[in-house]
């Protein structure tokens, strides 16, 4: 888990919804990421970065820059694939997944990759140099202020997020590589809205609010000050809880394939989405996946109504139809009602 100097996840006060949404995605990356909306300085970035400590390590092809998954040849990069088809022996290593950040100032070339100029000048050979979408493969890709990202960069993200592959067709480069990542975006809605296409692409969304309770605020600040005055010491102190938490996440990941969802539960998930007037299937699928991941985190092998209830808002809120220039709001009362009548 490296020497990441980030605030420990286990010491974050409150913000339960956001933490849950992040954990669900770690347990099942196929949920499709999370968009975190909230006011300025509500520690959104701190919390996202904090997951570095609890991210799992995965099996990967030794030496591969994309950390290809040895168990899924179809998701491998072309190089690994040809090695497999040539019958080469593939060694595996453990790869510690991490949070890759995409800064706002990133340019197209560095996001999707470009020709390795150093290589071409020194060796005279054209070689592709992966960009952030390559580095992000099997990792968490974090975009702070995602609503401020340039449109053409957003397009690149959308393509990869949709297909799990980054296709580069530019200049003299024609290349593709796997690019499956958990997309985490944070934004302050005051600074502008997000393109609807990108909004829908996020599996889950949560809205964080500043803590109103003075005692809680005080606790947040005390911990922050303590961390700031000696980050290494603070992390070391929190390490036992971090390791315990890591185990919990690991167990949930291992348990996930065993988690069952009954026909009835599946029906109620779909009914909830329909009740909120959602047409597309993405909400249904995300809701079911998230409910299963939630059960796994509870160390349960079966999805119950509570699982659906506890993740429904995240899966649905950002997909509600809204009138122009109005913020859509999610009615939890209605959710409760809908679930009890089922």
């Amino acid at each position, binding site marked *: 888990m490296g020497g990441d100097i980030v605030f420990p996840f286990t010491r974050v006060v409150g913000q339960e919804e956001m933490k849950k949404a992040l954990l669900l995605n770690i347990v099942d990356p196929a949920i499709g990421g999370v968009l975190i909306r909230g006011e300025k300085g509500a520690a959104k970035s701190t919390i996202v970065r904090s997951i570095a400590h609890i991210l799992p390590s995965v099996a990967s092809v030794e030496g591969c820059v994309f950390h290809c998954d040895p168990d899924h040849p179809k998701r491998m990069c072309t190089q690994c694939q040809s090695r497999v088809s040539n019958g080469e022996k593939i060694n595996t290593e453990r790869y510690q997944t991490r949070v890759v950040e995409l800064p706002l100032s990133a340019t197209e070339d560095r996001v999707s990759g470009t020709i390795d100029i150093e290589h071409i000048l020194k060796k005279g050979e054209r070689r592709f140099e992966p960009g952030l979408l390559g580095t992000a493969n099997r990792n968490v890709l974090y975009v702070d202020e995602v609503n401020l990202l340039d449109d053409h960069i957003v397009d690149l993200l959308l393509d990869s997020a949709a297909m799990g592959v980054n296709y580069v067709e530019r200049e003299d480069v024609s290349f593709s590589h796997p690019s499956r990542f958990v997309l985490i975006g944070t934004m302050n809605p005051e*600074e502008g809205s997000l393109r609807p296409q990108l909004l829908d692409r996020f599996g889950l969304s949560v809205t964080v609010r500043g803590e109103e309770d003075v005692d809680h605020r005080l606790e947040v600040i005390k911990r922050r000050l303590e961390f700031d005055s000696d980050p290494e010491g603070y992390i070391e102190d929190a390490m036992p809880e971090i390791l315990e938490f890591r185990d919990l996440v690991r167990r949930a990941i291992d348990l996930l394939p065993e988690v069952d969802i009954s026909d009835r539960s599946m029906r109620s998930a779909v009914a909830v989405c329909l009740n909120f007037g959602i047409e597309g299937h993405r909400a249904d699928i995300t809701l079911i996946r998230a409910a299963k991941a939630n059960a796994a985190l509870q160390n349960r092998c079966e999805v119950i109504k509570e699982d659906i209830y506890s993740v429904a808002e995240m899966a649905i809120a950002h997909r509600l139809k809204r009138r122009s220039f109005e913020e859509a709001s999610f009615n939890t009362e209605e959710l409760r009602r809908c679930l009890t009548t089922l």
Partner: protein
Amino acid sequence: MPDDPLNRHPFSGIHEMHTAKEAILCALVNPKIKTLLIQGASGTGKTVLARSVASITDREVVNIPLNVTDEQLFGSLDVESLLRDGSVRLNDSVLIRADGNILYLDDAGLLDHRLLKMLLGSVDDGVVRVERNNVSAEYLMGTVLIASMNPLESSLPQTIMDDFDVSVQVYGPKDPDIRIRIAEENITYRDGQSLFGPSNGIGEIDIRLDISAARALLPKVAIPTMLMRAISMLARKYRVQGYRGELATINVSLALAALDGRMEVSESDVEKAALMCIYHRKRRPKDRTKEECESKDKYGNTGESMLIDVIRRSDAYREKGNEDATDDEAACFGTDADPIIVSEEDLVMRVGDSFDAIDVIAEIDKGTYAERRSIRSLNSRGKSVGEEEYQGGILDLAVGATVRAAAPFQHRREKESASDMAVIIEMKDVRNRVRHELRRRTLLFVIDASGSLIIGSRMTNVKASVMSMLEKLHSRRDRVGIVRFSEGDTELIMPPTKHVESVAEVLANLSIGDRTPLSEGLMFTYEYMLSYTRKHPEEECYAIVITDGRANIPLREGADPIDEALELADKMRMPGLKWIVIDTGIGYSKNDVPESLSRRLDAKYYTLDDLKDN
């Protein structure tokens, strides 16, 4: 200009500006205080103060030029090292030089907001991540950013204000004796008659000692929980978002105590610190205009809560009677002279049903959709659409094209050169990318909110048409703002923002005032847009004036309010701004002023009915 004596003005020789000086000392003592904003009118010594910091530290003051680009600020590919030995390296950037030094940004309000946001983020993180072109790099940058701003000339959205740890105000001293002394000292000092100017340098040594003593003491300084709680409550009271305000207040309090040689933070430390750290983050209750905490303009209007506004105006309306509702109007809306009952609800008319509006801007900008929407990018942002020869300036290397350009000469160059590189590139081969980026627009609605609009619910129609235009025009990238003008209340009620949801809310709550200061409304818009267009040269700006033209308050006493407005309009054309006039007059209230106004402003003219797309 290393030899300009202003660059070396000694800190101790600076008069007044106590809070600002204290804030700077705090930042030098406590490295957690990273960003400082100094606000004040021009010529009050903001820059001199910032530069004088070099006299009390061993750090250098690194200046950020206003026209700085992403590349110059954060760094990009170093073309020389690339051509020399093929190595991909980051060139020298402003932020690399800032590490361990002090950054100074003059007129922060004029820097591109996006760039400023990224800058503040990097300073706060202490790390710069560069993912540009062919370079992927990360470097540490420990620095203090001191920024100045003249609130009369520019402003920053609240979301950026929130990013400053500390914000202080400086004022020009009122005392003539002090003013004379400052002027004298400045003159002698500039003339270079004294090496150390007003102080002999001893002051600086003392301050340096104070700072290092305070730095040593800082880790031992404690803050009582009671005071921490008070800070939290204060932050809540002023609706400060997030925790940064509280953390900054604590960090400044600790530094103040340390500077005073105390091991415990006192109440007065917290008071001082809160002024520096909480005040600029406060949001007004009911937070309608989220982009700006207090829309205080130079006309002295402070943004009170809308409710108080409405009540105040409704009283004024009752007292002054319905002067505005002239016989014409009465004729139009029934001669029975129904008493117009003005309740608070009436003054905030609802937003009428929106309709399918025409595109008032497309009518102006002929040309294809694509032509209208994208322009050549002057930085390396935007979509790459081709390559061209590198002309110097920003390097946005098109690798393939560059290598292709160099290819025909390789055979000869290999013979002539001692280089062992496989491909030898010379400067003349270098090709830059050509990029296009989407054009951005700012739509400023300038709404006549005078009493005459109360008749026949015209305000309801006005609101409906603004909403309809927005629905038609608005793309996610546009900024939309609202100026309202009526007697004694001409203000920017919504600074241009991309958050249209809050525009809709402000519009819904827009109240009707009294008489019509058309000249003032125009003048306000003109001055605001003059600085706005300067700050956003790449933006297309439109001012959409919505009025019935029944001006009845002049700017200059005794002038004819209508003639004056029209005369002013003649002088208000400016590059980068297009005017549009929408005439709200109907029936007898309709007059030819709006149309004349549109001619003077070189504006497109529409009536409310014209807007409907049939």
